[in-house]
């Protein structure tokens, strides 16, 4: 079994209301140079490396609105 880190992020071009809200808050706080804030999910799991792509496509992400990538750590 491999230790795997999965990152799920909103697809570019898809509206990201959370990212927009946090970006506006950062601007309000004075961090004027911040842009392109996007909020996604981070999932850790231990499982079979040869099934991770399938799991990402089927349930961990929704390919209509999200992208995913993963790292196998050990």
């Amino acid at each position, binding site marked *: 079994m491999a230790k795997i880190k999965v990152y799920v992020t909103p697809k570019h071009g898809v*509206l990201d209301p959370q990212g927009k809200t946090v970006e506006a808050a950062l601007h309000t706080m004075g961090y004027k140079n911040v842009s392109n804030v996007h909020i996604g999910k981070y999932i850790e799991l231990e499982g079979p490396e040869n099934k991770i792509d399938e799991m990402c496509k089927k*349930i961990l992400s*929704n390919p209509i*609105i999200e992208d995913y990538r993963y790292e196998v750590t050990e």
Partner: protein
Amino acid sequence: MKFGVIVFPGSNCDHDCYNAVKDVLKQPVEYVWHQEKKLDHLDCVIVPGGFSYGDYLRCGAIARFSPVMEAVKKHASRGGLVLGICNGFQILTEAGLLPGALIRNRDVHFICRHTDLRVENAKTPFTNKLKKGQILNIPIAHGEGNYQCDKKTLTELKKHGQIAFTYHGENPNGSVANIAGILNKSKNVLGMMPHPERAAEAILGSADGLGILSSILNTR
């Protein structure tokens, strides 16, 4: 006409749907637990609102793998009617029974209030008692009701008359083309964010939802 209301762990509009069908439409209705695998005896399946599986991961993402969802797909493929309301709509998109996806509301908060809907297609099993352009007052209650799809899908939806309802006036959640509810291509599956079952009797503040529910009886 025999109705079934699916119950997932976390469904919370199942009783409202059951009540609307039993006491207002006066039709036979039963609860269907999410572990069920057969829906052969039902004419119309309602996938109700709520927070199935706590809305963990994404709304509807886990519910769509419940055993009953395979049966719902079979029911839909043989022409049976499926009505997904709110969380039910989210589950139907996750299950691939309807195109697109529902994301966080534009203004990021949960919205619970009455909205005006415009009927965009009155020639469906769910809208045949209504008129195109008619305005219905029906409540919404959601945090993730912002319907999104790519341009190609939107063109297809428009071309095939799959947009059932749009928000009239202000769009509460930022959905593309003001979409509030869509149908599959063959029009036997409807997903909508507003709650017709919460507007099925005058005592609830509006009975406009009854137009949708009673249209279903008109189809057979």
